[in-house]
């Protein structure tokens, strides 16, 4: 009994470690990727040296190289955020003002509990699912927690004692409402296809092959659903082109009255949410931890070749595959963020209510008809 608890703790710590690192390194990715896309070099100056009793010259060489790659900028960011003044406006509510960033970041991180990051691993006669919480309605769990995250944002806007921040919070609320619905409804098609809400079962069902050579990933059954989901999920992350709640350059956002690490928590939330939607997209539409042609006993290639794979290698390969796919989608969302300009607010509402929502309803209808016709 106790050992089960320990195993759960280790798995959740691993997932948390991975998620926070992915989120933290996104500051680096954001700087470097935008620089490469715009023919610049990007951050390459921040570095520090350590005295001899911490390693001295050999460590310093490595630090200099890391600084040249701009990786130490993330560290400098954190140092700056921690050492800044934690300012609470006079009209603000001290308790709620402090609570809001915690709410935002907590619900974003906890949503990962339902996502299977790899195939179940068999160790010492024990089957350990690489999933923090095996919720049988995991999809609803993830979606629900992703939506609750907006409470932190609204709260931040309301208790700042700043009208512009309140407006930013309200913008966030109405944007979330407009896109949450499309987000949820677009996934009903997937649920109809796979017949389950359990994320680990959804991933397992994507392991098969279509016509003997095509991996049976969700995007092949739900191309429109995938497009709607990715659009709505981008809006969910509150980043460009849907960053109207924040609108840093001109329209003032909900976290205007936040400074230091509390602001950092909101910033982190955005990045965690990017990882979350990347992980959800991977899980629902791109086969999760599945690799094409890889079955638990080895690779079955469509031309008949077979390469056996040991169980641990299979699990490791699954974890690697999932990480790679998530990294790709993080890269892709970053690409969109640095390519498209921001929507106007009426365009945003138009897209959410008049385009994505009806489209996802249509998607459900067509999917249901096809499924009923096929399975009679």
């Amino acid at each position, binding site marked *: 009994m106790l050992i089960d608890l320990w195993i759960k703790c280790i798995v959740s710590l691993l997932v948390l470690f991975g998620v926070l690192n992915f989120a933290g390194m996104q500051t680096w990715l954001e700087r470097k*990727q935008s620089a*490469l*896309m*715009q*023919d*610049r*070099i990007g951050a390459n100056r921040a570095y520090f040296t350590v005295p001899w009793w911490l390693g001295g010259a050999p460590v310093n060489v490595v630090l200099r190289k890391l600084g040249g790659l701009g990786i130490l900028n993330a560290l400098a960011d954190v140092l700056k955020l921690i050492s800044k003044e934690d300012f609470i406006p006079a009209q603000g509510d001290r308790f709620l003002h402090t609570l809001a960033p915690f709410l935002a970041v907590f619900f974003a991180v906890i949503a990962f509990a339902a996502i299977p990051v790899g195939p179940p691993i068999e160790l010492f006669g024990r089957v350990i699912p690489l999933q923090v919480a095996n919720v049988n309605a995991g999809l609803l769990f993830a979606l629900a927690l992703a939506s609750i995250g907006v409470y932190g944002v609204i709260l931040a806007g309301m208790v700042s004692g700043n009208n512009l921040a309140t407006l930013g919070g309200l913008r966030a609320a109405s944007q979330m409402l407009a896109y949450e619905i499309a987000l949820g409804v677009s996934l009903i098609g997937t649920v109809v296809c796979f017949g389950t809400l359990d994320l680990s079962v959804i991933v397992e069902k994507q392991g098969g092959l279509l016509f003997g050579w095509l991996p049976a990933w969700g995007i092949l059954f739900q191309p429109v659903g995938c497009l709607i989901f990715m659009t709505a999920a981008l809006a969910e992350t509150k980043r460009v082109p849907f960053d109207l709640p924040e609108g840093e350059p001109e329209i003032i956002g909900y976290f205007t009255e936040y400074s230091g690490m509390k602001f950092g928590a909101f910033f982190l939330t955005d990045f965690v949410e990017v990882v979350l939607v990347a992980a959800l997209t991977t899980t629902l539409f791109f086969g999760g931890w599945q690799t094409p042609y890889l079955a638990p006993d080895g690779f079955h290639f469509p031309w008949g070749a077979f390469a056996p794979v040991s169980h641990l290698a299979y699990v490791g390969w699954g974890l690697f595959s999932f990480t790679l796919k998530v990294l790709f989608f993080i890269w892709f969302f970053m*690409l*969109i963020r640095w*390519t498209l300009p921001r929507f106007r607010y009426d365009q945003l509402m138009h897209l959410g209510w008049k385009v994505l929502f009806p489209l996802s309803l249509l998607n459900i209808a067509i999917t249901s008809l096809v499924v009923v016709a096929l399975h009679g």
Partner: protein
Amino acid sequence: MASLSEQLLHRIRDAHTRRRLTWWERTYLPAIAQGLWITSAHFWRNLALHLAHRVGLFRHVPASVTIQYPDQLRKTEPRLRTRHRLTKRADGTPRCVACMMCETVCPARCIYIVAGEHPDPNVEKVPKSFDIDLGKCVYCGYCVEACPEDAIRMDTQRHDIAAYSRDGMWLDMKELLNPGSKKFGEPPEKFVQLSLEEFRQLPQTPDPPPPGSGLPQTP
């Protein structure tokens, strides 16, 4: 060729009769795909080039347009007006004959000359002190154009001028004759008056590189 106003009118007419977007175009998907194609092409091209530069390949193909400013210096244009200097005769004394043309023409009134007598009767005058307050200077270059003796030029290729105080922006005669001889933060010697012998004994800095060739290395 149509005149400018005609072109503008044509453009305005065009804007009114702009082609309506087709349904497929109004989904924005093709435009978004195009945009993503362009930006990701830049991304992969630059990433590949950066990696290739690391191992010493394709060094002649730039992966970015960045100039790493204090380490790398941008090539200056030949016509660029940079910080002033006073040109010297062969023996290190100033060419300036203290005719006051530059001081007179200066719109910012940032040049201060005190004239003295030159021992050579063919030269007649020499500046006892020659100061420029860069804090006032507007870099118009009139002093260079007014000078009949080619004694003042704006070709030091120095434009990284910074100081902690207004006094730090003051160029005294020693600095003007030998640009770069003063260290950063060293206070100026305002209205310093030197004899011709002292001019010859000043530590001489070489002439700046010819215009357009780039900046001298900062000390």
